[in-house]
């Protein structure tokens, strides 16, 4: 997914002379082809996230469209004020591409996890927050990213994620995709959890429980219309995210529904509890710890019904 996203930056840069790439000391060989072809629009700066985000803002103020890339916690927490003030206050078309969203970097410990990125970025006016499910969907996001008028945060998943998106999706930032029509249950998921929910829905269907899956790839601006049309009439609404329960997708969905005056069905929010992670291992073992595997999601739905 990362290569797909970065290769798309190169492609966009060919298409549009305003596009520049800024990395903050990334891995060896990153976007080698772009560097060779258009060195004047390829920047590999040092380990200095505050600087690169401010620098991107400056470029955007003068008409460029910078795509900035580094590891998720460092492109969010480490330079939060630059993101808030330089990028969001000025409402600039800066794109932040975040490697290793959620618990992808499980073996590297809490400094390298991004489990509060939705919460802190969604709190910033003007910012759009997107977490696609697979590399194919990433291509569609990158295509529409060029014309998005304001700041955009792109959370990358692990890579090699099963492809569940469709060429016919008509992908648009801010418009959720109904991956499976609801029955008694509606699951709302984003990023890597959508695929888990689809598998959970299969398990539930085998047991006679029909449940839908709404892929909320854009956490902000949230697709209010989709929620308002799909939530009423369900027995159970479940939100599933690779993120802390505080302030993420589940919070956004509930805020939206409550503000719209919808009478809520029973709600279950699945995600990461309010604690720094205590273990290493892998993304998959952490999903298991937090009850986010397909089997565990199905089980929690069944218990809640």
């Amino acid at each position, binding site marked *: 997914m990362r290569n797909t996203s970065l290769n798309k930056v190169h492609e966009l840069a060919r298409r549009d002379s305003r596009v520049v790439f800024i990395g903050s000391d990334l891995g060896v060989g990153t976007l080698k082809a772009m560097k060779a072809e258009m060195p004047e629009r390829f920047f590999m*700066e040092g380990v200095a996230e505050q600087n690169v985000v401010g620098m991107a803002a400056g470029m955007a103020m003068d008409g460029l469209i910078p795509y900035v890339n580094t590891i998720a916690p460092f492109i969010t927490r480490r330079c939060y004020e630059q993101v808030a003030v330089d990028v969001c206050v000025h409402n600039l078309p800066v794109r932040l591409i975040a490697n290793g969203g959620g618990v992808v970097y499980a073996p590297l410990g809490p*400094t390298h996890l991004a489990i509060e990125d939705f919460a802190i970025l969604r709190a910033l006016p003007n910012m759009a927050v997107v977490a696609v499910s697979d590399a194919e969907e990433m291509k569609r996001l990158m295509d529409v990213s060029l014309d998005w008028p304001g700041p955009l945060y792109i959370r990358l998943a692990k890579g090699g994620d099963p492809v569940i998106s469709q060429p016919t999706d008509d992908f648009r930032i801010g418009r959720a995709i109904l991956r499976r029509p609801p029955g008694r249950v509606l699951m709302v998921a984003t990023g890597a959890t959508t695929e888990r929910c689809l598998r959970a829905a299969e398990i539930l269907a085998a047991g006679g429980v029909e449940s839908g899956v709404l892929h909320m790839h854009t956490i902000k601006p949230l697709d209010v219309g989709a929620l308002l049309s799909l939530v009423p009439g369900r027995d159970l609404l479940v939100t599933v995210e690779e993120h802390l329960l505080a302030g993420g997708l589940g919070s956004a969905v509930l805020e939206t529904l409550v503000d719209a005056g919808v009478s809520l069905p029973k709600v279950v929010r699945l995600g990461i509890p309010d604690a720094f992670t205590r273990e290493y291992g892998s993304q998959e073992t952490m999903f298991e710890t937090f009850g986010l595997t397909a089997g565990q999601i199905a089980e929690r739905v069944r218990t809640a019904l």
Partner: protein
Amino acid sequence: MRQDSPIRQAARQAEARPLDNRSKHLRRLVVEGLLGGGRGHIGSSMSPIEILRVLYDEVMRFDPANPKWPDRDRFILSKGHGCLAQYALLADKAFIGRETLATFCKRESILGGHPEAGKVPGVEASTGALGHGLSIGLGMALAARIQQRPSRVFVVMGDGEINEGSVWEAAMSAGKHKLGNLVAIVDYNKIQSYAFTDEVQPLDPLPEKWAAFGFDAIEVDGHDVEALSALFRGLRYDGDRPTAIIAHTVKGRGVPFAEHQPSWHHKNKFTDDEVRAIAAALEDA
């Protein structure tokens, strides 16, 4: 052409010098972690081994049986991704059991891909996000002063890490507070993640930068055990200037095909041939 300092030149010439058995032993401990976890920052963990070896063997005061002993010296590996180097020393000094090394990065392990305080005895601060260690060290050095403890604080940073502005905020403050008990050490292996520092973010003249921020800046061959030992023993620690040690090192030192290779910064798989070649390179003389 850049004018290299005599110590930088000498360090380069000394690279052909073989490592002694203790240095090889410590690197074999790094490899135990690396292969146990099936991944790790190999280049980054091999370059500061002699710095840590001399600090733990000869310089720092600590008690593995009582890791929280208040008067201990504080050691912070600010470049936390090089943690296998510290884990090797912690195992060697019996802060942790040697068998723990093989659990590196595993689900239940105390040894993650970055060191966590409160999990690993002997680790003072959780690092891994670069550019934090010197500020923490500054705070510890001030605490020692306020509490009238003899503790000294040693902070090891990467050369890429010092791109972070926060490092220089801490440096300015340390100069202002005249913290003789604070020693900043730069593991100057000339490589960061993407490429050589000269390509990504040139740092020279580096000793002059630290001096301008109020430090006594000293260059040393970071693999020369005797030179490191003499340097650390020669410091006063009670003067009115913090010390910056610019240690000229080789990324990947001890594993010939990894030395000076940006691509050996981090690996998450090793071929059988590589495993054999690493073992062979680190056999005792």
